[in-house]
């Protein structure tokens, strides 16, 4: 019954993961992270429905809040980097290394 939701969730998570690993544009990477978070939310909600309690739904709300905070800080960093380096590529910001 809930298998379809879980498969969809896994697919969304995989798409998001691949996007984070292969895309260079920071905005797209960011959107992929959001996709992964939402895939998780879908899984939580599905399990909440399957188990007949609210635990999963509560956690989904927490994830949304954390995701919102993360977006605020993340976008601010990306904008700042874009202003200084005229690029949104994550490979260009590789100064912090050995």
């Amino acid at each position: 019954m809930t298998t379809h939701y879980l498969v969809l969730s896994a697919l969304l998570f995989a798409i998001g993961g691949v996007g984070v690993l292969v895309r260079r544009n920071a905005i797209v990477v960011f959107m992929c992270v959001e996709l992964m978070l939402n895939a998780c939310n879908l899984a939580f909600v599905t399990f909440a429905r399957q188990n007949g309690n609210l635990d999963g739904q509560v956690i989904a709300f927490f994830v949304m809040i954390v995701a919102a905070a993360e977006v605020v800080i993340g976008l601010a960093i990306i904008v700042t980097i874009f202003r200084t380096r005229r690029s949104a590529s994550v490979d260009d910001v590789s100064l912090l290394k050995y």
Partner: protein
Amino acid sequence: MEPAEIIQHSGGAIGAAWLMIALPLVGAAVLLLGGRRTDKFGHLLGVLMAVASFVVAALSFVQLLGFAPGERRRGIELYEFIPGLAKMGLLVDPLSISFCLLITFVGSLIHVYSIGYMAHDPNRRRFFAYLNLFVAAMLLLVLADNYVALFVGWEGVGLASYLLIGFWQHKPSAATAAKKAFIVNRVGDFGLLIGIFTIFATFHTLAFDGVLANADKASSGTLTAIGLLLLVGACGKSAQLPLQSWLLDAMEGPTPVSALIHAATMVTAGVYLIVRSGPIFQGAETAQIVVTIVGVATLLAGAIIGTAKDDIKKALAGSTMSQIGYMVLAAGIGKAGYAFAIAHLITHGFFKADMFLGAGSVMHAMNDEVNMRKYGALRKVMPVTFVTFLIGYLAIIGFPLLSGYFTKDGIIETVMEHNAVLGWLAVLGAGITGFYMSRLVFMTFFGAKRWEPTAHPHESPAVMTWPLIILSIGAIGLGAFLVLGNRFMTFLAPAVGAPEEMPAFHPFSPTGLATLALVAAGAVFAWLKYGRAEVPALAPRGSFLTTFARRDLYGDALNEALFMRPGQWLTRLAVFFDNRGVDGLVNGLAAGIGGTSGRLRRVQTGFVRSYALSIFLGAALLAGAWLVVGNL
């Protein structure tokens, strides 16, 4: 006759005996802490403190004479550290007061002499501070009523000796000699310290009255061990074989130091220790035999070294070793010998200080030249020094009726009664003494002038000659005063005991005549070789015996081969192990971790996506592992 009981005492000069120690200590503190401000009057303050100490000693002596002989051991309690266990107190008895009088009287004279001798030294104040420090420490050594305080004084005189030998530390030889004296003394101190530990373990107290009165209750094995350990201490401080090597080098110090510390007082501390610990040695026959053997070996070794030295002070140092050998020999015999050992110690303090100061006076006149081959014919230009030195010389060789005649002959007679072999060796030593002291006097004061062209000898100032004159008076009369009628033995008996039968004085016993004949033969031989004959300016090569004596009987070579070289090897081994072993381990570990981290940090590329990949792989790995484990 056994030693008398110790009576607790307070009041009078004896009650204030601590002043004897405190006064010179205050002098030293003022001069050392006062710095240059005290330069102007430093020497006068030093003399004043020494003389004040002598006055206290003399008053205590007078008060002591007022008591009946059996009540002349007075204990003064100063402070109780641990109730019932550790007390600090002083013991004023005939033995300690004899030492106090010798130390403060000869010490005061040498203080006065030093005013003249050190007049041109920029550090004269510091010199007097050290002299005062020495007097305080030496008095603490002899006045202490327990072994701990004795040890404090013992170390104090060692420190003062070190500071004074190295007083001219700008000379490398003086700095080395000071270190050598300190290190060799450390060996002796080690023995003494272990001895004191053993005493405490055996008797559960360190006070003289508790230890010495109960000495007969301990087993003879324990007493032998304690006796031998104390002997090691005595050997170090008194320059007896096998710890004699520092004394000859100690002559690098200013001459008044050689006179006070390395002839008259400090080096006799070992004799004091043996005599003070008499009951311990009397219960340990083996230890006594070892003491006499050490004494006789040193008296011969010192005399032989004295025959070959061209340095006037080193010849006198050999003689000091030899004379202290006599004292140790007598002290090793027991009650019969104690009085003669201490009497010889006192007269030796006078005539040896007299001769050392005389040698200092000669050096002062000859631009600090110490080589006797560059002296000669000084008797006319330095009449006072010559006459006083001559008196000291006649006293030490045992010329009839002078001090040394009575005290040294007393030792030889006592030893002869005890053991004929030791006795004849002591007689032989006296003969050699006759030779080397005559050699010294002939080379210095007689014969032709062999002076350096720059030398303009002159008599020393009065501040230096008066101490010589006073000391030489002691060198003339003190022996007869102490020995005739067994005066000193009777006086000392309450402190150290005395033989049941007082020895009678035979003016012309066979032993005495044999000694005199040998001494005369030695003196005549010296006259033939060094008085009448020309003394070559450079020392002739001589036979291997001469070389043997010149090289201090290879004592230094032996020490170097046995201790110094292996010690250096050990040090090098330790340094190698430290550099390669310990450091190698630590440095290797650090280098290994550093190298590994250097390679590992290359993983941090700065590319966010590769980090993400590694996180992803890690998560996949964990998930896979969980699946596998979960399925098991």
